[in-house]
């Protein structure tokens, strides 16, 4: 492929019509809202159907994208489906540039203003189609889970409506081809997150949690808007000049960032602002406080939004517009970037907080925050592919973990999530859930050969290989902490003596505890009203009489499927195996990671909606695919040098670390040590109640201080709410109130008074004097005229006679005069 060949890239119906994937859930939402309550399954079937259709289209898109990439790599026309799977993958020899596979774009202009066109539609490339398929798949499974889990809820239909709309919003965001559509999807997600967290808004704790989530993310969203604006103003002129596009188009932004002509200030501050949005949405320090509170929502919501899909929106944003961050933070040249630091801090602090939680969902929430920190760490240090791979695997096992927690609460602990009070020893009663939980935990902690091992260790490996040794150790420490807190949670839930509801205690006890927990506000996100609890009882009335038991099929099947993927998803990109089995095993690297190859601008512009584009492979291969050999950085090519005139780059040449056996062993060893310590501690502390350990925090002041610090979440909530919000909100509120009373009300009152006085004046002067005067005057004139003429009606005959003869004489005179003269 050295010669400049023109290649026809294959496209396909699924790729060109991928916008349906975003549209169908939105339509589903409207249908559920309109007709859901009258349907036999109360709207759930519409949600399931729309997600199933979206999944089918997404999977079709995956297949066609694979074909497209193959047709680009092999230089042949699009092969058949069998060919695409059967052929060994890319024929390009090592060290040669693989051609850039342009995304399939289908968009319509929905508004234009002075030449600036705003489009809506889809732009499908590897990252987009991966996430679309992932979101559709996970949402479908969670919806199946919810059919049984949420049964009997007072707002069953709206739950499904909101969930369908959420997935529509996320899909819209993922497939967007410009920033405006991305913001649209982002905001839809924020809205539905609010709706779903506050699903049981009758309890104040839940509505406060929903508001906290919304506002905290909102603080970040300011960064999104500011960042979009900065990038627009930076990129627009370049995009118009070079690509016949505008500053909102994501591809144009990517090309602009890597063009070398971009103003570094725009890049830097745009990157900072956009990353602030990611901090908010993806729960990074310091805006992570909303995520644990968001566990107030129903478990399916936690498993879908706040673990697998919505919270990775921030990570997706960074991955999508990666060139901006790459150039803005100089990731390529090894600078310690803002993203990496935040990510590293988040890993540690969230992991520490997970130790002191009694609520199983909060443990998982902090775990999610920590794992998101891993993804950000990866992106911040140039490990793009491992971070995206971690999104992929994390979705499976974290969703499985949450669904297991839901299953436990649904059938094991009488709707309670408190591990210390209502769980324990459930492994015998709920074997399937226990098995899935264990598998997912092993995946989460990165044990070979489960999914997390391949992705998380890749991140850590690349972080180290790119030169960030300290951050690598932070990542390893985080892995150890992950193992420890997950062990604690596992032990409290599934081992030991059954406590509380897990022991099958009667309704009264459990209820009293639940309500007590509600009032304290600690732990129990179990915020149903008494009536709804009664509803729930009505549905599984038989459950409580015989204590904890395994959940029903609709709950277990999604869990099992997800656990299966937690085991196997890692093999989508098992880099350590590449040296033995060839690069072909690295599926995500081939098909998802964009190629750092320049393509000529003429070809970019020529590619229209869904059309195959003819691309020209460069005659000289810039070694953008560096790092295969030594793990070093390649210092030329996209992301490092400006592309030649007439060509544009869309993705920087990220490096890939060569996996070393020693590093793998090291991380596994650290995880094993973590497990060992944790198991020993749990057995000693929770099991045997070892005297040395029990009450340690009360006896030791330092430990107690640390414990309280963690328990109060580093006092961040107090800082945000009591100090910052109060200092800003109260004066504003007072000022607004003053304006309302003194200015607005005064104005309104004055207008009213003025109107009244004007009316009075008009009445007195104009109405009474002029109008009435005219009316009266005309009457007076008529009457006086009548009076005046009355004298002729004297009733006297002689006068009448005088008049008669006089008039006759006059008339005669007139006649005579007329006739004679």
């Amino acid at each position, binding site marked *: 492929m050295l010669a400049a060949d023109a290649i026809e890239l294959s496209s396909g119906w699924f790729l060109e019509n991928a916008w349906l994937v975003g549209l169908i859930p939105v339509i589903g939402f409207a249908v559920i809202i309109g007709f859901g309550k009258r349907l036999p399954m109360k709207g759930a079937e519409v949600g399931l159907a729309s997600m199933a259709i979206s999944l089918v289209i997404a999977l079709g898109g995956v297949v066609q994208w694979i074909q497209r990439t193959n047709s680009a790599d092999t230089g042949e026309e699009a092969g058949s489906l069998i060919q695409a799977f059967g052929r060994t993958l890319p024929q390009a020899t090592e060290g040669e540039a693989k051609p850039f596979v342009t995304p399939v774009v289908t968009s319509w202009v929905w508004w234009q203003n002075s030449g600036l066109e705003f489009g809506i539609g889809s732009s499908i490339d590897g990252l987009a189609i991966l996430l679309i398929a992932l979101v559709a798949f996970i949402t479908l499974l969670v919806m199946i889970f919810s059919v049984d889990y949420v049964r009997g809820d007072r707002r069953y239909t709206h739950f499904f409506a909101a969930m369908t709309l959420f997935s529509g919003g996320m899909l819209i965001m993922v497939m967007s081809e410009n920033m405006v559509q991305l913001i649209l999807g982002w905001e839809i997600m924020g809205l539905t997150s609010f709706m779903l967290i506050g699903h049981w808004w009758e309890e104040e704790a839940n509505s406060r949690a929903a508001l906290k989530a919304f506002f905290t993310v909102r603080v970040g969203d300011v960064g999104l808007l500011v960042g979009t604006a900065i990038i627009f103003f930076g990129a627009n002129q370049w995009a118009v000049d070079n690509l016949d596009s505008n500053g909102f188009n994501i591809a144009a932004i990517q090309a602009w960032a890597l063009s070398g002509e971009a103003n570094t200030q725009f890049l830097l501050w745009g990157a900072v602002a956009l990353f602030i949005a990611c901090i908010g949405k993806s729960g990074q320090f310091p805006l992570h406080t909303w995520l644990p509170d968001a566990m107030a929502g129903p478990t399916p919501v936690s498993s879908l939004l706040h673990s697998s899909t919505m919270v990775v929106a921030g990570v997706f944003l960074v991955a999508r517009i990666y060139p901006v961050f790459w150039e803005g933070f100089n990731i390529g040249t090894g600078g310690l970037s803002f993203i990496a630091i935040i990510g590293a801090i988040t890993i540690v602090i969230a992991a520490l907080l997970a130790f002191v939680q009694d609520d199983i969902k909060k443990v998982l929430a902090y775990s999610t925050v920590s794992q998101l920190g891993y993804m950000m760490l990866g992106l911040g240090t140039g490990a793009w592919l491992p971070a995206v791979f971690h999104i992929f695997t994390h979705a499976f096992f974290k969703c499985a973990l949450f669904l297991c927690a839901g299953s436990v609460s649904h059938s094991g602990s009488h709707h309670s999530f408190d591990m210390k009070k209502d769980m324990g020893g459930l492994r015998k009663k709920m074997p399937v859930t226990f098995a899935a939980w264990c598998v997912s935990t092993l995946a989460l902690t990165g044990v070979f050969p489960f999914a997390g091992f391949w992705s998380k260790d890749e991140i850590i490996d690349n972080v180290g290989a790119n030169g960030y040794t300290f951050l690598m150790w932070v990542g390893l420490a985080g892995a150890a902490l992950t193992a420890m807190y997950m062990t604690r949670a596992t032990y409290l839930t599934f081992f030991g003596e059954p406590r509380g509801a897990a022991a099958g205690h009667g309704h009264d006890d459990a209820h009293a505890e639940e309500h007590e927990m509600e009032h304290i506000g600690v732990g129990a996100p179990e915020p149903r009203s008494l009536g709804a609890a009664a509803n729930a009882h009505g549905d599984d009335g038989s459950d409580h009489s015989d204590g904890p038991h395994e959940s029903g099929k609709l709950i277990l099947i999604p869990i099992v499927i997800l656990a299966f993927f937690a085991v196997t998803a890692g093999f989508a990109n098992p880099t350590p195996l590449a040296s033995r089995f060839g690069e072909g095993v690295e599926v995500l690297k081939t098909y998802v990671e964009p190629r750092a190859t320049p393509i000529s601008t003429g070809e970019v512009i020529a590619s229209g909606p869904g059309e195959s584009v003819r691309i020209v492979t460069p005659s000289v291969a810039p070694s953008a695919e560096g790092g295969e050999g030594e793990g070093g950085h390649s210092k030329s090519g996209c992301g490092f040098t400006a592309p030649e005139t007439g060509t544009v780059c869309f993705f920087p040449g990220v490096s890939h670390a060569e996996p070393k056996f020693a590093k793998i062993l090291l991380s596994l060893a650290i995880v094993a040590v973590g497990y060992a310590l944790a198991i020993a501690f749990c057995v000693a502390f929770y099991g045997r109640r070892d005297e040395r350990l029990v009450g340690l925090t009360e006896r030791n002041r330092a430990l107690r201080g640390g414990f309280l610090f963690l328990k109060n979440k580093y006092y961040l909530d107090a800082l945000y709410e009591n100090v910052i919000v109060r200092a800003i909100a109260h004066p504003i509120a007072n000022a607004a109130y003053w304006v309302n009373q003194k200015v607005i009300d005064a104005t309104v009152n004055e207008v009213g008074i003025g109107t009244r006085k004007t009316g009075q004046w008009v009445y007195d002067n104009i109405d009474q004097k002029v109008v009435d005067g005219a009316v009266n005057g005309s009457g007076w004139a008529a009457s006086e005229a009548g009076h005046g003429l009355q004298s002729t009606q004297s*009733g006297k005959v002689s*006068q009448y*006679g005088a008049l008669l*003869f006089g008039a006759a004489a006059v008339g005669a005179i007139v006649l005579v005069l007329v006739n004679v003269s």
Partner: protein
Amino acid sequence: MLAVNFLLLAAALFSIGVYGVIARRNAVMVLMSIELILNAVTLNLVAFALMNGAIDGQVFALFVIAIAAAEVGVGLAMVLMIYRNRKSIALDELSEMKG
């Protein structure tokens, strides 16, 4: 003799009758003035009959006389009635139709 003789004479009688209708207060006096007027007209008719040699004027004059008689009869009957009701036939007191 000149035609104008009769005609002027009739005109004079007519004018005097008009004055009488206007100026007189007593209802009977007014009726008498009306008789004057009628006679003036009748004189005119006869004079024209003489002028033109047609006898129709005299025929018409006879008609006028007859009608005048009828009119006086009825008129005086009405005056009598008024007198019975009002005890007065001063026309300036009979202004019930005053508007």
